[in-house]
């Protein structure tokens, strides 16, 4: 490619580019073509500019030839984009989200994504916490059992009521059975014995109550200081036969 700078510049530079791009009128084109035959500078520049023009055209055709692939035409995206901006009611939520991320700058996309992730995490945390929490029927304070891994399921009042009911039931049981049942000296017959065993009512021997002997009673009275050393201080007299 010859160097243009080595040639003198003709004053008809504007006519040159007009002629080069075919925009000169018929008369002007004829006039300039005659000038080209006489002016070496313009002739040289015309040839050089035509090469530059051809090089740009080759690049343009290569580039735009691939760029204008129907599959990736920017037209469609631009049309859709403006249409969606124009008519927001037509957008689905997904399309609106997609459009938002397309139009937004990178920092805004990142911030939105981070906020969404944070929101999801908080939501999951809240749901998981509320899932494990027992349903509170009343506002009463629940009883917390120490060393218990499970959450309390009864209120304190409920527990108290249950305990009272159980105590009452036990008391009732005790009152319904004779007090001196264990003190009977009747020797059970073989049949009775079998019935007791069958009903699992036989008490262990060690737990069976028995009457105290006199000696034991006196010892107990002494231990409890119920017997004064002097006879005057005697508050009361122990009976010789307490169990009689």
């Amino acid at each position, binding site marked *: 490619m010859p160097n243009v700078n080595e040639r003198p510049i003709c004053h008809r530079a504007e006519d040159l580019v007009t002629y080069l791009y075919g925009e000169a009128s018929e008369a002007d084109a004829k006039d300039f073509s005659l000038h080209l035959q006489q002016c070496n500078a313009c002739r040289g520049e015309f040839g050089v500019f035509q090469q530059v023009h051809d090089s740009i055209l080759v690049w343009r055709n290569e580039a735009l030839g691939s760029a204008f692939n129907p599959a990736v035409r920017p037209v469609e995206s631009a049309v859709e*984009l403006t249409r969606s901006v124009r008519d927001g009611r037509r957008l689905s939520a997904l399309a609106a989200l997609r459009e938002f991320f397309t139009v937004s700058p990178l920092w805004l996309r990142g911030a939105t994504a981070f906020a969404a992730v944070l929101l999801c995490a908080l939501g999951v945390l809240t749901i998981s916490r509320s899932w494990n929490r027992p349903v509170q029927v009343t506002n009463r304070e629940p009883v917390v059992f120490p060393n218990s891994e499970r959450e309390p399921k009864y209120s304190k009042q409920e527990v108290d009521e249950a305990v009272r009911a159980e105590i009452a039931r036990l008391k009732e049981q005790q009152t319904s059975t004779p007090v001196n049942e264990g003190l009977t000296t009747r020797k059970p017959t073989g049949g009775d014995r079998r019935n007791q065993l069958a009903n699992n009512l036989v008490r262990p021997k060690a737990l069976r109550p028995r009457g105290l002997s006199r000696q034991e009673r006196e010892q107990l009275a002494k231990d409890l200081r119920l017997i004064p050393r002097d006879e005057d201080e005697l508050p009361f007299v122990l009976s010789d036969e307490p169990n009689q």
Partner: protein
Amino acid sequence: MDLATNDEQMVERALSGDPEAFGEIVRRWERRIFALAFGMLGREEDARDATQETFLAAFRNLRGFRGDAKVSSWLHRIAVNQCITRQRRAKVRGETALEDEAEKNAAVFALPLDSSPARTAEKIERSMAVRRAVGSLPPDLRQVIVMKEFEELTFQQISEVLELPLSTVKSRLYTALRQLQMRLQKFGD
């Protein structure tokens, strides 16, 4: 949509609530705007983004459109501003090295498979050289050469778009061609 309806009438329709009017404007001008953006920016992806941004900006500022100018001129002006802004940002981010590599790869994939390696390499080098030469022009010269070579606008149209006298457009184009020749000379030697 009626093709006889001119762009200015389309804008009026869009302003009066016609949902298809602006879409028609986009359909009419998107190829030229994309070509302009591609020539200015040198990368298909950037050009596509700039094209989208141009039409979005146009739609948002539709009410600010003055009827005394042509819609095409108005769109081109928005596109040129978008491209200059993008280039300024890219320059700040220092993306030129990566751009070159990406462009080279894109050019390799775009070429037909039956071309010989030597011819392929030469084509790639030539395209890269032209792209670099155009990209290295000052913005005022580059926009003129791109409008002329990529969009094939007339001098009159370019002067209307850039709001410059006709003679200024021609002299800028002449200067741009001279500078391009100097930059491409290395490749020809």
